[in-house]
C-alpha cells in the first residue's frame, strides 16, 4: 500500500515536473504521507515518508534516475519531508488510537447498558441467565455457557441450544470455580482450551462460572474484550445474587405460609370432622343403651341430630374433595347454555330442609338470557353461598336471590340481611380456610367460598362480595351470557 501510494505520488510528480518546481512537488509526497498516516497507521506512514524521500530524490531531483543530489539545497527538503512525515504520522496515529479507545469505550458502555437494562426487568434466575447469555454472546460474538452453584455443586444452566462440553472444558470450569480466577483460551491456565472461563462472583460470594467460546475456530479474546467481559460478568453476578436472595426469601415465606395453611387445615379438619362424629356416636350409643329410658320424642330428637350431623360431615367431605379436585385441575367443567331460574331452583331444592322456615325471595328478570355454565357445579356454588347466607343471618331474616343480565353477562346476587362482612375481609373470604372471625358459634371449614371462586373462575366468570347499603352481605356472581359465546 505504501509502495502504491508512493508510486502514484511519484507518477503524478514526474508528470507535473515540467510545470512545477521540485520544491512544490514535495507537497504531493507530503499528501501521500498524510493519507498513509490517516488510513494505514503509524508504521506504513513512516515507511511512506522514507520511500517518498527516496523516490523524490531518485525521480524528481536532478540528476533524475540517480540517488546523487546535484543541489545541496535539496538535503534540507529531504530532512523536512522526513520530519514532517514522521510528525504527521505520529499525530495521526495518536488520534486514531484515541478514536479507537473512544469507540471501544462506547461499545463497552452500550453493552453494559444493554445488559443492565435487560437485568432490571428479569426477576427469576432463569430470566437473568437468559439476559446474560444473550447480551454477552451478542457483545463478544461468542457462545456463552453458564454454570451455577446449587447446594454446593456446580451445575450447567440448561439452555435450549446447549452444546455438550468435553472433559477438558469441564476441568477448566472446575479449576475456575475452585480458584475463583479466570482460565482458558489465551489465559495462563488452560491456555489451549477452546473457551475462556471467568468466575461469576460478587464481593461476598461466588455464584458460578461463565464461559465464552468462539462459534467457529477458537480465537482468544483481546485484552479490551476481556476487560469488557469482566465488567459484564460483574454486573451479571450482582443480578444473580439479588435473584438468589429473593428466591431464598420467597421460599422461606412460602414454607411459612404452607405450614400455617397445613396447621389451619389440620385444626379445621380435626375439629370439623370430629364434632359431627362425636354427636353421631353419642346419639347412637345413647339409643343403643338399653338402660336409658328415653321417650319417643327424645329418641326422635337424638336421631334427628345424628342425621343432621352426618349430612354436615358429608358436605365437609365433598368440599374437601372439590377443593382437592380444583387444585389438582381435575375438575371438569361442562358448560352449556342453561336456564338460570332452573339453576337457582335446583339449588333451593338441594338446600331443602336446611332452608327451614326461612323466607326466600327469588327475583328473576323477565326475558333473562340463558347463561353458559356447568349446571351441577353452579348449583353447588349457589348452595355454598346460600348456606353461608343462612349461617350468617338471623333465622327469620329473608334471603333474596336476584338474576339479571348486565353487560353481556348474567349476574346472580345472593343477598342476606345478616351481619355483613367486615370491609377488610371482603376479598379474604374467598381465601382457602379463611373465615370471618366474629360469630364463633358458626361452624364451617372456610372452603365453600374458595371452591365457589375456583369454579366460577374456571367458567370465565367472576365472583365477589359486597355489603348491602341497608346491611347484610351480598355475593355477586357474573357468568357469560349465552349469545356471547
Amino acid at each position, binding site marked *: 500500500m505504501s509502495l502504491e501510494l508512493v508510486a502514484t505520488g511519484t507518477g503524478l510528480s514526474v508528470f507535473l515536473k515540467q510545470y512545477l518546481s521540485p520544491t512544490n512537488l514535495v507537497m504531493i509526497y507530503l499528501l501521500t504521507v498524510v493519507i498513509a498516516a490517516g488510513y494505514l497507521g503509524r508504521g506504513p506512514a513512516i515507511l511512506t515518508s522514507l520511500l517518498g524521500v527516496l523516490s523524490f530524490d531518485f525521480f524528481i531531483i536532478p540528476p533524475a534516475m540517480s540517488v546523487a543530489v546535484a543541489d545541496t539545497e535539496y538535503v534540507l527538503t529531504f530532512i523536512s519531508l522526513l520530519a514532517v512525515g514522521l510528525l504527521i504520522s505520529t499525530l495521526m496515529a495518536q488520534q486514531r488510537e484515541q478514536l479507537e479507545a473512544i469507540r471501544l469505550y462506547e461499545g463497552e458502555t452500550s453493552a453494559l447498558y444493554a445488559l443492565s437494562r435487560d437485568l432490571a426487568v428479569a426477576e427469576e434466575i432463569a430470566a437473568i441467565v437468559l439476559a446474560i447469555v444473550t447480551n454477552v454472546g451478542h457483545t463478544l460474538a461468542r457462545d456463552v455457557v453458564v454454570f451455577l452453584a446449587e447446594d454446593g455443586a456446580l451445575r450447567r444452566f440448561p439452555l435450549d441450544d446447549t452444546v455438550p462440553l468435553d472433559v477438558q472444558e469441564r476441568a477448566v470450569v472446575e479449576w475456575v470455580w475452585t480458584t475463583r480466577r479466570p482460565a482458558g483460551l489465551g489465559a495462563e491456565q488452560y491456555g489451549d482450551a477452546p473457551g475462556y472461563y471467568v468466575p461469576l462472583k460478587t464481593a461476598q460470594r461466588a455464584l458460578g462460572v461463565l464461559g465464552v467460546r468462539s462459534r467457529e475456530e477458537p480465537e482468544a479474546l483481546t485484552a479490551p474484550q476481556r476487560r469488557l467481559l469482566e465488567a459484564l460478568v460483574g454486573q451479571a453476578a450482582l443480578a444473580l445474587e439479588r435473584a438468589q436472595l429473593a428466591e431464598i426469601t420467597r421460599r422461606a415465606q412460602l414454607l411459612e405460609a404452607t405450614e400455617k395453611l397445613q396447621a389451619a387445615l389440620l385444626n379445621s379438619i380435626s375439629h370439623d370432622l370430629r364434632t359431627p362424629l362425636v354427636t353421631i356416636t353419642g346419639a347412637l350409643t345413647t339409643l343403643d343403651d338399653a338402660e336409658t329410658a328415653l321417650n319417643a320424642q327424645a329418641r326422635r330428637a337424638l336421631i334427628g341430630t345424628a342425621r343432621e350431623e352426618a349430612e354436615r360431615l358429608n358436605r365437609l367431605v365433598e368440599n374437601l374433595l372439590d377443593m382437592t379436585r380444583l387444585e389438582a385441575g381435575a375438575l371438569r367443567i361442562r358448560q352449556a347454555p342453561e*336456564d338460570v331460574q332452573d339453576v337457582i331452583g335446583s339449588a333451593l331444592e338441594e338446600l331443602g330442609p336446611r332452608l327451614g322456615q326461612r323466607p326466600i325471595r327469588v327475583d328473576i328478570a323477565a326475558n333473562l338470557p340463558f347463561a353458559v355454565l356447568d349446571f351441577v357445579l353452579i348449583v353447588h356454588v349457589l348452595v355454598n353461598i346460600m348456606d353461608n347466607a343462612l349461617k350468617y343471618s338471623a333465622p327469620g331474616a329473608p334471603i333474596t336471590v336476584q338474576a339479571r343480565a348486565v353487560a353481556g353477562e348474567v349476574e346472580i346476587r345472593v343477598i342476606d340481611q345478616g351481619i355483613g362482612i367486615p370491609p377488610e375481609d371482603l376479598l379474604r373470604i374467598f381465601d382457602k380456610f379463611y373465615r370471618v372471625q366474629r360469630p364463633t358459634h358458626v361452624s364451617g371449614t372456610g372452603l365453600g367460598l374458595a371452591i365457589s371462586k375456583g369454579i366460577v373462575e374456571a367458567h370465565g366468570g367472576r365472583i365477589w362480595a359486597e355489603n348491602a347499603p341497608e346491611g347484610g352481605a351480598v355475593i355477586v356472581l357474573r357468568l357469560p351470557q349465552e349469545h356471547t359465546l
Partner: protein
Amino acid sequence: MEKKDKLRVLVVDDERAIRRFLRPVLEAHQYTVMEAETGAAALTAAATGHPDLIILDLGLPDMEGTEVTRRLREWTTVPIFILSVREQENDKIAALDAGADDYLTKPFGMGELLARLRVALRRRVQPDARARFEVGALVVDFARRLVTLDQHEVALTPTEYDLLRVLVQNAGKVLTHHQLLRQVWGPGYENELHLLRVNVSNLRHKIETNPSRPHYIVTEPGVGYRLRA
C-alpha cells in the same frame, strides 16, 4: 305375608358395610334380599335368582355399571336402581340411558330409597296406561289431550304437551336429557339440550305456581328431569 309373596331384591355392592345396612332395612320392609359383590356375580344372580328389583352400585371392582345395565337389559326388564357417588355422574347418566330406572346418590336416606323402590316396583307391576293422570292440582287427560290446573285449562304448544305427557307417563322416575329429547323430539335430537331447557322453562311458567321453586317438574342437576309423583 307368605315368603313366596315377598318381593326379591338383589343388592349388588362390593362394600360389605352397605350390604350389611341394606339387608335388615329391606327385610324389615318385607323384601327378600340376595347379595352380589361383583358385576359378574350380579349377572349370574339375576339370571338364577329372578329378582324383582336390582339395586346396583356403580363402583364395582370388575365391571362398569353401564356394562352391567346393558347386559341385563339384553334379556330382562327388571327394574334397576343405581347407587352412585358424586364422582360417577357420567357413568350414572350412561347407566340410566342404558335402561336403568332410577338412581340415588350416596349417602342417601332410607326413606327416600324405599319410596323410590316402591315407584319402580309399581311401574313394573302395572305399566302406567291410565287415560288420565292427576297429581296435586294438575290433571292431564291423555284422551282429550287436555291439561288443567285447578280446573283451568292450560294452553300448551304441541311440544310442551308431548314433554309433559312423557314426564307424566314416567311419573316419579328420572328421565335423562337424552331420553326426553329422543322421546319428545325423536332420534337425532339427543344433544339438543337447549330445546329441552327452553321447553321445560316455558312449561314450568304455565303449570308451576312458582317457577323458581317448581313443584311438579323437578330438575335432577346434570341428569335430567322427573315429574314429582
